[in-house]
């Protein structure tokens, strides 16, 4: 659609700008302000320049949390994106069963995040939880509260349970938008299922997959409530991710300066990755047309 050049449109976006400025710029400036000062109380504050940044970047615990976070987020993407596509391909395309599947799939998305943690806490307990009991019956010595590997596996499975539906629903709507004529043409050409997927469905899913990867990456990178309720970051620090480390630093220990420097670095990392994903996926999509 061709758009008209009209600077009076700024009046229409003004409310959004004011509201978001109030809830983003003011707090962000506060964070920047804190990050360069050592604050004892309101009157006693010293300008320390980049000291907090250096301290945060060199902090061993934080580097480990960042590493855990990256491993977690990439593991999530590797599992949820293919699984989501597969589920979307398997869903009935229209009719009563289609709506029912949609409603069932969307259900985990509407559960408060800490309740998701609670559900899995109950479900995974080796003594009273169905999941825990089933795994133990398979002869595996399973306890997510003691064993770091089990804790990791539980947090991963919980996130797959929670969010794969989002990927599936996005892909489902992408698939529905492909005209039937494409499939008819493919059938006349005798294309295999794989060829149909590779050359018709996957290219058409590019846009929705971009949204899915971005949303999943951002949200998994900010994950807080679910592991907090399920494992409390334990055993040890094995499931402590970045948000929880930050919350501990800011609200638990009230270390304003380091917490603020941490926040800004955290924010920049997310922006960097989203930009990387966005540009690479756009590049891929611009390859030779099929």
């Amino acid at each position, binding site marked *: 659609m061709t*758009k008209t050049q009209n600077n009076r449109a700024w009046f229409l976006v003004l409310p*959004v700008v004011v*509201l978001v400025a109030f809830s983003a710029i003011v707090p962000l400036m506060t964070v920047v302000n804190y990050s360069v000062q050592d604050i004892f109380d309101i009157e006693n504050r010293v300008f320390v320049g980049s000291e907090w940044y250096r301290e945060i970047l060199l902090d061993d615990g934080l580097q480990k949390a960042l590493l855990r976070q990256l491993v977690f987020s990439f593991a999530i993407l590797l599992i949820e994106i293919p699984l989501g596509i597969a*589920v979307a391909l398997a869903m009935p395309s229209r009719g009563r069963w289609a709506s029912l599947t949609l409603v069932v799939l969307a*259900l985990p998305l509407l559960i408060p995040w800490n309740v998701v943690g609670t559900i899995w806490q109950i479900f995974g307990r080796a003594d009273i939880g169905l999941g825990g009991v089933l795994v133990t019956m398979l002869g595996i010595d399973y306890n997510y509260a003691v064993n770091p590997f089990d804790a990791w596996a539980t947090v991963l499975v919980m996130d797959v349970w929670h969010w794969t539906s*989002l990927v599936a629903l996005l892909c*489902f709507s992408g698939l529905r938008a492909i005209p039937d004529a494409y499939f008819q043409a493919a059938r006349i050409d005798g294309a295999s299922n794989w060829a149909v997927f590779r050359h018709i469905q996957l290219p058409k899913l590019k846009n929705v997959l971009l949204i899915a990867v971005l949303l999943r990456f951002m949200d998994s990178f900010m994950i807080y409530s679910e592991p907090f309720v399920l494992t409390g970051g334990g055993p040890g620090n094995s499931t402590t991710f970045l948000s929880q480390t930050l919350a501990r630093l800011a609200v638990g220990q009230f270390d304003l300066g380091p917490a603020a420097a941490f926040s800004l670095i955290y924010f920049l990392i997310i922006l960097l990755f989203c930009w990387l994903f966005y540009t690479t996926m756009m590049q891929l999509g611009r390859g030779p047309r099929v």
Partner: protein
Amino acid sequence: MKARHLLLIGYVIFLMLPLYWLLNMSFKTNEEILGAFTLFPNEFTLDNYRVILTDPSWYMGYVNSIIYVTLNTVISLAVALPAAYAFSRYTFVGDKHLFFWLLTNRMAPPAVFLLPFFQLYSSIGLFDTHIAVALAHCLFNVPLSVWILEGFMSGVPKEIDETAFLDGYSFPRFFLTIFIPLIRSGIGVTAFFCFMFSWVELLLARTLTSVNAKPIAAIMTRTVSASGMDWGVLAAAGALTIVPGALVIWFVRNHLAKGFALGRV
């Protein structure tokens, strides 16, 4: 064809099992939960639900959550509608930068804003009010609303606007009586997303409230740690938090697929 169905059925079972377990436990007594492993409640009881629905310190949590979620949805839609119209119809100085800046707020970790929000809302006297949580959730819901609505609005042909203006409609009248009805499914979907992200968020909601506006999710965590582990009541409270979401999904089920693609398919 067979393998597909198996995958879907397996996935649905995987989704339903933890939910079934939650429901199952919410109908059991604590003795049964801890004493015996049973697939169905032996002594079916509604006591756990009775505890929640008769105690104001429990059920007010649901009321609080619903109040701030509704406020947030209304505010987000009210400011996002004109802005999305501007983005979908006009180019103006800095429009691309502004759009990207809005989206960066959706990417900001709530944990980053924890402390500044706490201080900001305390200093203007909004701490522990519903409006504080509603405004804080605008941080991620307003950019998302603009994004979704812009997608839906771009699907409406521009000739409709032009014809209406030629017919002598003023902008507000055109917008309210012609344009908004045209994109009502988009508005429904946007409201659904605002509801969803505000309803499930806990970190900010918990930080900005203490008593009067405390969300149900926060009440659950507190009560559980205080009274040892009352598994039955915990499960019942969890089961009740799913109800509003399930109702909302049911209302938008026909627009769900298009909505999840943010109007961009």
